[in-house]
């Protein structure tokens, strides 16, 4: 297990790494190099990175279950918040750059088109998780905190569906993410079965890890 100091370094490195996709967008935008359809490029990139970071967040527990290594759980909240950060950028791109706050058009789009609806739902559901990610909220919510935050599994499924339903025909790329998600959820399910090393992640232990 890395020392406290090492963890701090890892967190700092991860923080910077998570900002690379955004920095790249600024860099490309600055050089007028966002391609023929810049709005769509920014929209797709922010959405893609929200999904990738969500999958990273969801892989912390499977790593623990498989290797017994637990220190990485300490990185989970930061990753989850970065996922929400990119989801916010994605949603902002959608309502601003893509639709220029044409609210009636946007509400119709959300209500009428399933891929937009599931994406929007995933975004809305992530908001309370981001708000209650701090220690005070964990203490206040007690066992309900864990219940609330298990919404992340549903969010993962909705996010992958959002990608799958958006694609015109070639679903190979979203399928890769769907498979990774299935694997991550599958590992959890396997270890939940009675007889297997079961969940030791009681809220108390989690509180300690989440410091």
């Amino acid at each position, binding site marked *: *297990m*890395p*020392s406290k100091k*090492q963890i701090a370094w*890892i967190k700092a*490195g*991860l923080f910077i*790494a998570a900002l*690379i*996709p955004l920095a*790249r967008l600024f860099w*490309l*935008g600055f050089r007028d*190099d*966002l*391609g*023929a*359809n*810049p*709005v*769509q*490029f*920014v929209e*797709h*990139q922010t959405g*893609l*990175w929200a999904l*990738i970071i969500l999958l990273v967040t969801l892989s912390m527990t499977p790593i623990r279950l498989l290797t017994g290594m637990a220190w990485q759980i300490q990185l989970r909240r930061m990753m989850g918040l970065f996922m929400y950060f990119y989801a916010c950028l994605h949603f902002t791109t959608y309502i601003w*750059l*893509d*639709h*220029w706050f044409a609210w009636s*058009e946007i509400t*119709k*789009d959300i209500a*009428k*088109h*399933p*891929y*937009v609806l599931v994406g929007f739902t995933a975004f809305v559901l992530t908001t309370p998780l981001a708000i209650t990610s701090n220690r005070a909220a964990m203490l206040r919510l007690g066992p309900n905190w864990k219940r609330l935050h298990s919404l992340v599994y549903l969010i993962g499924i909705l996010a992958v569906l959002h990608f799958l*339903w*958006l694609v*015109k*025909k*070639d679903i190979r790329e979203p399928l890769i993410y769907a498979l990774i998600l299935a694997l991550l959820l599958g590992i959890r399910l396997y270890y939940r079965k009675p007889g297997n090393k079961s969940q030791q992640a009681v809220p108390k232990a989690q509180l300690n890890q989440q410091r």
Partner: protein
Amino acid sequence: MLIRKKPDVVASEITPREVYENRREFLKLAGFGLAAGAAVATGLLSTRVEAAEVKHGRKIDHFSKTRYGAEEKLTPYQDVTTYNTFYEFGTSKSDPSYNADSLKTRPWTVSIEGDVKKPKTISIEELYKIAPLEERIYRMRCVEGWSMVIPWVGLPLSKLINWAEPTANAKYVEFISLADPMQMPGVRVPILDWPYVEGLRMDEAMNPLTILAVGLYGEVLPNQNGAPLRLVVPWKYGFKGAKSIVKIRFTDKMPQTAWMKAAPDEYGFYANVNPQVDHPRWSQATERRIGGGLFTPRIKTQMFNGYAEQVAQLYTGMDLRKNF
């Protein structure tokens, strides 16, 4: 005699247990970091921006300018030639501009088949001479919700049809694209039922707006745009414009197009641009004009892509919601 050997390692040099364990831990971490870095790097690579350097093609010697689209602002050449949907060369927008170099467009022949007086074959050189080439500036609206304005060079399809001499039996024209896995890497993947097939009703094909394009921006058609010849039907969604055509077949039955076979509830035979009839999964009310910047809003999509005056009469009495 007992020879006392000096130990290889002096006690003071032995690494204490905590230190080496820590080191191992550190190596593990470094490995972790490396893996994460590699993942990020591949992620960034796989999402490269669409910006292949495009070589300009040979100039087309003789073509006349026309009044079509004279008032439109053209989409930049760079965008027209690097943002393409041509699944035979890959499904991402930038794939065709990277991969289409492998397409050999000379020699090229098109075979004319089906309900014609006599089946024949025409070379691309002969096709250039069937009718004087003209420049037509057309709007192109893709079913995905983006659009361009492209200065095509080509000839009216009607001229080729007259040359082909279809019989009275011919009610539809079918366009079949090349599907050669050797030249077209995308064809090795069963994304669509190859070859790509498109079709028009005879009166649509004879409409003066419908052209066979052999060039754009006064130059020979770049491979990624469907060289050496492609269909352009400006009041229909872009996918109706079959690329790299090798066969034109006249028939009395409505052709089953590649997209109709792939997703019959999403893509119909007519595929007329229609802001009132949404794609089942997304809206068709607005479109993003390519060539604008990050802060350029969408524009409203027009009925028949703004060509209603010339084509609306083709569909009188038809339910366009049903015949999408």
